[in-house]
C-alpha cells in the first residue's frame, strides 16, 4: 500500500464522516429549535401578538363590542399626555400619581419587613414553624384578604378601633385609606418576599457569620454590616418585583375602598379597567396601559442601573 493509497483512504474516511457530522449537527440544531419553538409559540401567541394588537387598538377609536371605529393615530397618546382639560388625561395623571404614591409607600415596607422577618427566622430556632406561618397570608386570595380586613377596619365596631379604643375612619378618609391599603398589602404579600430573602440568607457562607461572631459583632451589627451588604443582589431583585407588583395595584383598593374617598385611592389600573370594559373606550385604555408600561419599564431599568453601581 503506497502512501498515496493510505492518504486516499484517509481522505475517503474523512469525506465519508463529514456528511455524518453535518447530519448530526443539523439534527441537533433542529432539535434545539424544536425545543425553543414551544416557548416561541406561547410567547408569540400570548405575549407578542397581544402587545402588537394592543398597540394597534391604541391607535384607533375602539369599542370592545363593535371593534374598530376609525384610525386616530397618536392623538390618544397626545391627549393623555398633554391635554389637561380632557377627562381621560385627568384620569391618567391622577391614576398614575396615585400608583406612584402607592409604590413609594409600599415598596420600602415590602423589602424591609420581609428582610427583618427572614433574618429573624434565620437567626432563631423553630424555622420550620415560622417560615410557613409568615408565608401563610400569601396563599390567600385577594378577595379573602380584603374581606377580612374590610371587616377588621370598620369605623364603628371594627376590631382595630375596638382594641385601640379609637374612632379612625380607616377605609373612608385620607390618609387612613392609603395606610390601610398599604398595611393590607404588606400583610398579604410579605411572606413571598420573606421566602426569597430567607433563601438568599441561607446561601451566604456561614463562615462570614462565624467570623463576625468571633469579632464580637452582635445581632444588629451582623445584620447591618454582614447580612444586608451580602444580600444586595437579592434585595434589588425583591425591590424590582415589588415595584412591578405595586405598579399593578388594583384589587386591594377596588375591594377595600372602591377607589375612594373620591378618587383618592384609585390607581391607574382602575381607570384603565373602567375605560376599557365599562366606558368602552378600549383605544384610550390601551394607550393608558402602554404609557404605564413605559413608566414601569423605565423605573425597573433605573433600579437595575443603580443596582449595578449607577454607571460607575
Amino acid at each position, binding site marked *: 500500500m503506497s502512501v498515496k493509497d493510505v492518504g486516499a483512504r484517509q481522505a475517503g474516511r474523512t469525506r465519508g464522516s463529514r456528511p455524518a457530522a453535518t447530519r448530526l449537527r443539523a439534527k441537533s440544531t433542529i432539535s434545539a429549535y424544536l*425545543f425553543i419553538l414551544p416557548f416561541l409559540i406561547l410567547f408569540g401567541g400570548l405575549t407578542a401578538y397581544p402587545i402588537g394588537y394592543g398597540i394597534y387598538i391604541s391607535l384607533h377609536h375602539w369599542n370592545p*363590542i363593535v371593534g374598530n371605529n376609525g384610525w386616530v393615530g397618536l392623538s390618544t397618546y397626545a391627549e393623555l399626555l398633554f391635554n389637561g382639560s380632557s377627562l381621560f388625561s385627568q384620569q391618567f395623571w391622577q391614576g398614575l400619581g396615585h400608583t406612584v404614591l402607592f409604590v413609594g409607600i409600599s415598596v420600602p415596607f415590602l423589602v424591609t419587613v420581609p428582610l427583618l422577618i427572614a433574618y429573624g427566622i434565620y437567626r432563631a430556632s423553630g424555622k420550620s414553624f415560622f417560615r410557613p406561618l409568615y408565608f401563610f397570608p400569601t396563599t390567600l386570595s385577594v378577595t379573602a384578604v380584603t374581606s377580612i380586613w374590610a371587616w377588621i377596619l370598620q369605623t364603628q365596631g*371594627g376590631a382595630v378601633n375596638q382594641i385601640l379604643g379609637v374612632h379612625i375612619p380607616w377605609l373612608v378618609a385620607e390618609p387612613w385609606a392609603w395606610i390601610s391599603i398599604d398595611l393590607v398589602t404588606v400583610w398579604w404579600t410579605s411572606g413571598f418576599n420573606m421566602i426569597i430573602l430567607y433563601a438568599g440568607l441561607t446561601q451566604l457562607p456561614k463562615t462570614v457569620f462565624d467570623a463576625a461572631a468571633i469579632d464580637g459583632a452582635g445581632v444588629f451589627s451582623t445584620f447591618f454590616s454582614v447580612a444586608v451588604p451580602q444580600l444586595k443582589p437579592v434585595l434589588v431583585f425583591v425591590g424590582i418585583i415589588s415595584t412591578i407588583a405595586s405598579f399593578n395595584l388594583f384589587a386591594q383598593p377596588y375591594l377595600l375602598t372602591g377607589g*375612594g*374617598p373620591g378618587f383618592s385611592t384609585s390607581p391607574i389600573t382602575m381607570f384603565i379597567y373602567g375605560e376599557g370594559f365599562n366606558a368602552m373606550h378600549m383605544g384610550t385604555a390601551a394607550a393608558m396601559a402602554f404609557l404605564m408600561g413605559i413608566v414601569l419599564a423605565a423605573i425597573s431599568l433605573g433600579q437595575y442601573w443603580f443596582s449595578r453601581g449607577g454607571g460607575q
Partner: protein
Amino acid sequence: MRQPALALSLLLGAVWLAAGASPPPARTAAATRGAAVTFSFWNSGPDLSTLVQGFNRTYASKYAIKYRNIPYANETEIVNSALSAHKGPTLMEESLTPSAPYAVEGIEVPILPLLKMAGINPARDFPASMWNRTTVNKVHYVAPVDALPTVLFYNKALFKAAGLNPNRPPINQATFVRDAQKLTVRAKGQWGYVQEPAWPNPFLFPSLLEQFGGREANPATRKILFASSAGLAALNFEHNTIFKWHVSPVNASNGEAHNLFVKGKNAMEMTGAYDYPIFKKALGKNLGMSVLPVIGRRPADFLGQNYWWLFKNGLTPAVRKAVAAWFAYYYHHSLLLAKAGTIPVWGPTLKNPAFRRIAGMPVIAQAVNTGVLNPLIPNWGTTTSTYLYANISLVLEGKMSVKAGLHVAAQKMQQEMATLP
C-alpha cells in the same frame, strides 16, 4: 430519536395551549336529541337554573336553553368580552342601563314583537314604573324581569325600647328625624340611622332626588339634571343626618349600616329590598319594613331591577319563537319565584292573593308602583359611580360642600356624555 420526539410533543402541547385549549363543550340533553331549537341565555340576577330546567323539560323536543348565571359584580366586563369575541349570548339579563350601549350600537332587537308573540301586553301587564322610561330612541329593547325597590327597614324592638310605636315607622322627614333622634343612644353605640358616605347612595340618592321633584338626567338630550334645587335638598338631607341632627355616625365605612342593623345597633336603614332575607333572618319578628318615608314632596323610590334583551346574533325566526315561549313560561311562573324571594313584575302575579300573602311582598309591590329608574344612557352606572357617587362620598365625609359636590360631578358627567356612543 428521543430528543426530537420530546421536542415535537412539547411543540404540539404549546400549539394546543396557544390555540385556547378547552375541552369541547358538554352537550346538553336537548342538544343531543338534535331536534330542539336552542338559544343561549345569560343572567346576573337571581339564579334561574331550576326554572330553566323546568322549561327544558316542558319543551323537551322543541326548545332548549343553554343557561349561564354570571356574577353581578363584573357582568358588563364578562358580556363585553364575550361580545367582542363574537361569543355572546342570544338572550341577556342584567340591570337596565347596561342594555343602552348595545341598543345604541344597533346590536339589540326591538322586544315588543317578541312580547306579543308570548301573549304579553307590556302596557297592561308590567307596572308603569318598570315599562315607561325604558326606550332608546323611542324603541323598547328591554323588558323587566324583576324589581328591587328601595324601602325602609327598621328594628321594632329598638322602636319599642325608645317609646315609639313599632307598627308606625316614620312617614315623612319630620317624623324620620324625630324618631331617629329618639333611637340614637350614643352611650350604647346605638344609632337611629346610619348614613354611609358610599353605599347605598345609588339607591337612596335617586329616591330622594325624585321625592324632591328632581331627575338625574334627560336621556333624550343627555343633559345632566341632578345639580338642581331638588338635588341639593336630597343631599342636604343625607348630610344633615350626620352633621346637623347627629343621628348617624361620622365616616361610616362600607357595609357598616348593614352590619350595625343586623347587630341591633342601627335602628333604621333605607336600602334596596334585596336585604330583606338577611335582615329577616337576623331580626326575625323584630324586623319592620315599609315604603320609604316621604322625605321630599312626593313618594318615590329608586328601583333596582333586572331586564332582559335580545342580541341580533343568531336570532332566527325559530329562535324568536323559542325565546317567546321562555318569556311566557317565566312570567307565568313568577309566583314560584316570588316565594323564593324574587320580586315579580308580572301584573297577574302582583294581583294574585297568594302573592300578597308572602311576607313583605305587599310593601314591596307598593314600592314598585312609586318606583323610578335610572336614565337609559350608556355607561350610566360607571359614570355616576366615577363622578356623582365619588363626590357624594366626599360630601358626606365633610370634605366638600353639598353644592360643590353636585356641581363638579354634573360638570364632569356632562363632559363624559360627549364621549359616549
